[in-house]
């Protein structure tokens, strides 16, 4: 074991001596998650509202005035036919449509309950959520106002929210699992492959191979520091997402860690595989960038929902490890589901490790030709 630890120590020195890389590895995850974090909490102003008011009574008028008086909303037009709604959105002439039911005031006074519809374009899910929740708040405060002034103190106005085009708002919490996938892939796969290839390029690999240390120990020693760094980054990302971005870990932290470790091993074996294919550091960087980063960004469901991809791309996304990792993290972290719900993802990741390791060990040149 001593030769192995001597090698591990050397790998740590390589990383520590290269201050810029250390900074990138530790600061980049923080920067990324903060940037993505602010991307979802954008404040929406100057919301253009179109109103459909078939009942046109005292209550609806007062509510419309209240909304118009709110600094966030501008009532820009009225509609009299529901068929107009689609057109308004398609021509981008409105951000929100409010449609009152007929006999709004009468229903409110007689049954104590009246309803209206809030319709918005959910192709921009973050904006849609913000817009509807602002409007729902204005309506709620109006209701509280009238409840105070009347004898019947429990009148209800129920806004029915309708999110057009993307009803499930798939990408809402995507970025935390996505950034986790991206960072772990970057550190483990890219850095490991580069460091193995660098050793070969410098010629020091030959000296190690001529020594009694086993080639596999040389390679394993290279993965240890990156494994450590990944774990540090994982912890940082989780802390930031919980305490800064208010994305809670709903499920089991232990299960989340186990799955992350699995994903880290997938990435490490990919790094090993790349190092057995390419011959220079720039090539290692390029292959990691093109073959690993791009698919993680585009095909893993991090940015674009997999369900809305063309069938071919959906099919391709199946071989992207990050797709399975991100899906599992979403289930555990956001939805709070247990192990039985991520069995499939776990099985896929484990078999990926097995297959990639098998290929790279086969490729791995125990003896340089």
């Amino acid at each position, binding site marked *: 074991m001593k030769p192995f630890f*001597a090698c591990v120590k050397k790998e740590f020195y390589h990383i520590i001596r290269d201050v810029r890389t250390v900074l990138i590895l530790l600061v980049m995850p923080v920067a990324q998650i903060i940037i993505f974090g602010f991307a979802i909490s954008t404040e929406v102003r100057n919301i253009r509202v179109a109103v459909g008011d078939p009942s046109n009574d005292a209550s609806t008028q007062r509510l419309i005035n209240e909304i118009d008086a709110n600094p966030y909303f501008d009532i820009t037009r009225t509609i009299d036919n529901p068929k107009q709604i689609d057109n308004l959105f398609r021509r981008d002439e409105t951000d929100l449509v409010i449609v009152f039911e007929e006999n709004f005031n009468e229903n409110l006074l007689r049954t104590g309950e009246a309803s209206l519809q809030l319709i918005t374009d959910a192709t921009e899910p973050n904006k849609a959520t913000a817009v509807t929740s602002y409007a729902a708040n204005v309506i709620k405060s109006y209701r509280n106002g009238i409840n105070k002034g009347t004898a019947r103190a429990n009148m209800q106005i129920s806004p029915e929210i309708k999110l057009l085009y993307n009803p499930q708002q798939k990408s809402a919490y995507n970025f935390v699992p996505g950034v986790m996938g991206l960072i772990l892939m970057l550190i483990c796969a890219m850095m490991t492959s580069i460091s193995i290839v660098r050793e070969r390029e410098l*010629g020091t690999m030959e000296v190690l191979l*001529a020594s*009694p*240390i086993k080639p596999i120990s040389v390679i394993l020693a290279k993965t240890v520091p990156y494994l450590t760094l990944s774990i540090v980054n994982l912890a940082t990302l989780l802390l930031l997402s919980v305490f800064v971005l208010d994305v809670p870990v709903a499920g089991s932290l232990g299960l989340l860690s186990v799955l992350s470790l699995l994903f880290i091993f997938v990435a490490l074996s990919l790094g090993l595989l790349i190092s057995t294919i390419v011959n220079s550091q720039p090539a290692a960087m390029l292959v990691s960038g093109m073959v690993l980063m791009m698919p993680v960004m585009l095909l893993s469901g991090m940015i674009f929902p997999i369900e809305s991809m063309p069938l071919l791309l959906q099919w391709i996304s199946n071989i992207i490890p990050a797709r399975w990792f991100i899906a599992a993290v979403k289930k555990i972290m956001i939805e709070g589901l247990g192990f039985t719900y991520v069995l499939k993802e776990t099985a896929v990741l484990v078999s990926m490790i097995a297959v990639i390791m098998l290929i790279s060990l086969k490729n791995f040149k125990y003896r340089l030709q």
Partner: protein
Amino acid sequence: MIMNNIVIETENLTKRFGKFTAVDSISFNVRKGEIFGFLGANGAGKTTAMRMLCGLSKPTSGKGTVAGYDITRRPEPIKRNIGYMSQRFSLYEDLKVWENIRLFGGIYGMSDSQIAEKTNELLHTLDFGKDRNTPVKALPLGRKQKLAFSVAIFHEPKIVFLDEPTGGVDPAARRQFWELIYDASDRGIAVFVTTHYMDEAEYCNRVSIMVDGRIKALDTPDKLKCQYNADSMNDVFTHIARTAERTGE
């Protein structure tokens, strides 16, 4: 196991890459403490031969033993008994002098106390006392090479393989380097060295000259000079190398 103090012995050692025969049936032996020069033009097959002896590459046919172990079947014990300094620089530039020493001591399984003791001794003999904490990249090339050689024999191997160890330095620095080689040889370490520099060939006990994968001449520098009626090893080498048909790599 080592008979007559012979530490390297080969018999018709051959390596082919496809149809190309890089090393063509070479036979020679090297004795304990001997400085064995392994000469040849670029592409003559020196490096390939050396890699087979170090257990880095398997021979296609023929036999060889290094430190008493068969190179085909038992490369692992061979690796414990040899030192290797490659053509390209074999220390880690971003590591400090003592860290490099400790690393290779550790890789060869030496204990911490052994390493500590020998490190002090080595730094003293090389006059590296002040450079203990210097990163290797800050050392001049000549000093780097001396350090790399000392690290290669740090674990007291039976044989040390040097692949063009003195590339890029002037004759004065080469001579200093050879002082270390003589010291190692005096301690009984066989030195197997490839080189382009003919002044270095003169320093060897025996010299073999490879042409097109075959050993064309093998003797002491004096006898070779006598045999080819030449004044220097340089003349001997040009005379023999003229017969080459292969061009450089």
